[in-house]
């Protein structure tokens, strides 16, 4: 087993943890945190595959994609938080509920 494969499998585990959180948790904040964890898994997958057969350095294109992606993920997480807060202000709900 090569080193990049450890990181790849870690990224898969992170992605699955996040996806489980998105579907199984109810509260908005928990769902947002789970989405951020999923994003972390995707970024780690990109970076680990960039390393897989490095010549003189690792493939720089996935690295550049990841670094823009991290900032976009922060922005989208902030937007998700703003939405969750607005929903809470207007309706008092903190999760998606069907029993009404």
């Amino acid at each position, binding site marked *: 087993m090569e080193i990049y494969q450890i990181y790849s499998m870690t990224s898969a585990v992170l992605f699955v943890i996040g996806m489980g959180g998105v579907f199984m948790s109810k509260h908005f904040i928990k769902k947002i945190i789970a989405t951020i964890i999923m994003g972390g898994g995707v970024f780690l997958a990109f970076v680990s*595959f*960039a390393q*897989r*057969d*490095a*010549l*003189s*350095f*690792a*493939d*720089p*294109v*996935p*690295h*550049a*994609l990841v*670094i*823009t992606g*991290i*900032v*976009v993920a*922060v*922005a*989208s997480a*902030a*937007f998700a*938080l*703003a*939405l969750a*807060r*607005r929903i809470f*202000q*207007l309706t008092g709900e903190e999760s998606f509920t069907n029993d009404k």
Partner: protein
Amino acid sequence: MEAVWKVPEGGGLTAAAEALLPQSGVEHPVTAVLLNFRAYDTWLELGVILLGLLAIYAVGGIKRYPKQNEAGEDPLLRQVMLFFTPVLFLFGAFLLYFGKSGPGGAFQAGVLWGAIGILLHLGGKLVFSVIPRSLGQLLLTIGLGFFLSLGFLLLARGAAFFEYPPAYAGVLILIIETLAAISIATTLTAMFANLNQENKEETNESKPTN
């Protein structure tokens, strides 16, 4: 199972990036890809975070007029602010310049400078109520705007969009990175400031007469 597990060999775009690195104006391959070879992505990314901020403004509701809060009187917090603001600023500036030859650049510097804004905000020094509104808007859009106008300027001179002349590429990349870092820092601070404010509905609900 083998078909799932096996990843394609071939080195990706490493060889192409390495061959063109001397023309890019910087020495670090990731910075070269980010601000020269795929500058279009970086430009759009600046647009995306600005769009995120506008979306936050749009759903945020009507904000209460911000007042200086009481946390500024806390001596410990004031010392933390006094200590960390210059350190974060210097380290961000170092990372910005170091992006030329190592891991660093506009995004890392922008995040550190954004941390300064958030720290000041938490300490009761509300940045966006101190600086004039038009200056805030200028700082938010300067990265995206300079990048875009530079692209069109290059287009007008007969080059492709974001095709820097190799002689000036290093200087242009440093200017773009500086302005982009300022914009990113301001955007992140503005996002935090907006999320951290109470708005009118919340203030009304807290009144017992409601």
